[in-house]
């Protein structure tokens, strides 16, 4: 399936600021289930944009504007080919086991997902289950036990706080599910991305107006597969990945600094659309 994405991040200041430095993880990421056909990143005002790869293998961009400015607009546009039509299907060959680096990253605690006895207690009954099914069931559990509320958490909220008020946003749901997987020794990681929403069954509903977050768990049968606890379904060809990490902390879409004395306002707008591939019917 082809999906086009436009992601606009705007920072507005009440007075001139200088030396804005932004570290962006807005893609593109290509793996066995998706391919970015095009990727374009534009910044207003005139900025320097440099691409590099981060320590998790994600594409990242360093954006700098040294001259005085009162707005910073970062717009990415991309077209992505996604291929995972049936997320339950077994891969053609058995996945190779994770190396020591990936195991350590995705099994141990991380900055926003510290070890918590409560996670262990919730996950314990799933320990003996077949891992792929266990993750699916844990996902249902998270979806049912946690209430979606956008006003109780922020970007630095750790899993312990989310557990204590049983509510949060998709970022928090993802953190909880990752913590549960790790508690029963299933490697799990955080995915930052977009979804193409729809009303059909198996198609995600929530998360299309901004960037979205879900998780990937590694199971001996399926390798890395995505689980979206907010929408309570497997990530499929409707999901587009920007970056992966241990938790949000490793892969925020943007993170930056500026110098100046000004009030700041952030706004984000995301649009995802299906693309009818030209010529696809003519062959």
């Amino acid at each position: 399936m082809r999906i086009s994405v436009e992601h606009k991040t705007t920072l507005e200041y009440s007075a001139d600021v200088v030396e804005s430095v932004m570290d962006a993880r807005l893609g593109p990421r290509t793996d066995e289930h998706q391919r970015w056909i095009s990727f374009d990143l534009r910044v207003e005002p005139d900025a320097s944009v440099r691409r590099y790869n981060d320590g998790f293998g994600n594409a990242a961009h360093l954006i700098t504007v040294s001259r005085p400015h009162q707005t910073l607009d970062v717009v990415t546009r991309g077209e992505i080919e996604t291929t995972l039509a049936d997320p339950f299907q077994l891969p053609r060959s058995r996945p190779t086991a994770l190396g020591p680096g990936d195991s350590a990253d995705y099994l141990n605690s991380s900055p926003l997902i510290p070890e918590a006895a409560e996670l262990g207690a919730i996950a314990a009954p799933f320990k003996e289950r077949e891992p792929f099914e266990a993750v699916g069931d844990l996902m249902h559990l998270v979806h049912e036990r946690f209430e979606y509320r956008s006003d109780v958490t922020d970007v630095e909220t750790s899993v312990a706080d989310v557990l204590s008020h049983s509510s949060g946003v998709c970022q928090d749901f993802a953190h909880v599910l990752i913590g549960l997987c790790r508690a029963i020794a299933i490697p799990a990681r955080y995915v930052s991305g977009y979804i193409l929403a729809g009303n059909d069954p198996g198609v995600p509903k929530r998360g299309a107006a901004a960037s979205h977050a879900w998780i990937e768990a590694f199971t001996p049968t399926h390798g890395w597969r995505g689980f979206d606890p907010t929408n309570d379904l497997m990530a499929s060809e409707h999901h587009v990945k920007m970056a992966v990490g241990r938790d949000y902390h490793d892969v925020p879409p943007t993170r930056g600094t500026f110098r100046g004395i000004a009030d700041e306002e952030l706004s984000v707008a995301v649009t995802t659309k299906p693309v009818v591939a030209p010529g696809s019917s003519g062959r």
Partner: protein
Amino acid sequence: MLSRVADDLYWVARYVERGIAVSRLVDVTRHLELDAGTEDFWAPLVGAIDLASEDVRFYLTSDTMNPDSLVSCVRAARTLARGVREAMSSEMWEELNTLYGSLATPTTSRQVRGEAVSFARLVRERLQAFQGLAESTLAREEEWHFLELGKFVERADGVARVLNRQSHLLAAGQGSDPTGPDVVRWLAVLRTCGSAEAYARYYSLRVEPARVVEFLLLNAVFPQSVRFSLVSACAALDAVGTLRAAVGNDPGPAARTLGRARAQVELTAIDEVFERGLESFLTDIQLLIAQASDELSATYLRDQPQPGRLVGVARATQLMAAQQQQQ
């Protein structure tokens, strides 16, 4: 050189020069105390009112609440110097550091109470030694120019301020024939500016207020005068401006502003000064110096990242708002 280092050196030089001026003031209050009928003179000179003589000296020498006391000046200069010690010679740094160390001993405060004048003199000599060491141990590069700039801007500003505070004495009868107490007062002004002997050489001891003003304000060759100080400050600023321009950057407006102040004292005769009114003339000079100092900061000394519009830049970096993955 680094803007921060230039800034700190500039202020080291200002505090050192300010310390020297304050120590002269301590000397002068002692002299005045021994002459009767001068109480009304003190307050404006010191800038503090309602203080008994002992207290004035404490206020001037060791009051750490007074940011311009001798001890505060030494402490400020040494604290800044410590952070930029690599930019000055070891001799300069050690001079300031040992001076500061000797102030920090417990016996010092007792000494100050008892022997404020000799204490002030001792400190002054050390601060002058610091200036002398700068003169003999530093290459004439940016470090030197910023020290010179700080020293002469402080001096021009300080002398102009002392004169401004006494301008009310002239309002009465600017004069040709000063009374006894007036002579004492104007001598005190000269001493405060370290200029009594030099004045005597010029004008053969006859203390005339107008001559004193002319000497301290307009003399071209005496290093304590406002004119000499501004000419020297301009020279230092030209030197750093030239280096900046050489790599294609705008040397900024400070040189023009300081040049205007210099032109005032270079091109005005003493009669014209009095015609315009001494007070308003001096106030103009002080305002131009303050403006130049701000412009200097914006171009050379602090954070201006690019030539261009002046931005109120906080020194600290701020974090941008982060986007939560919330939907």
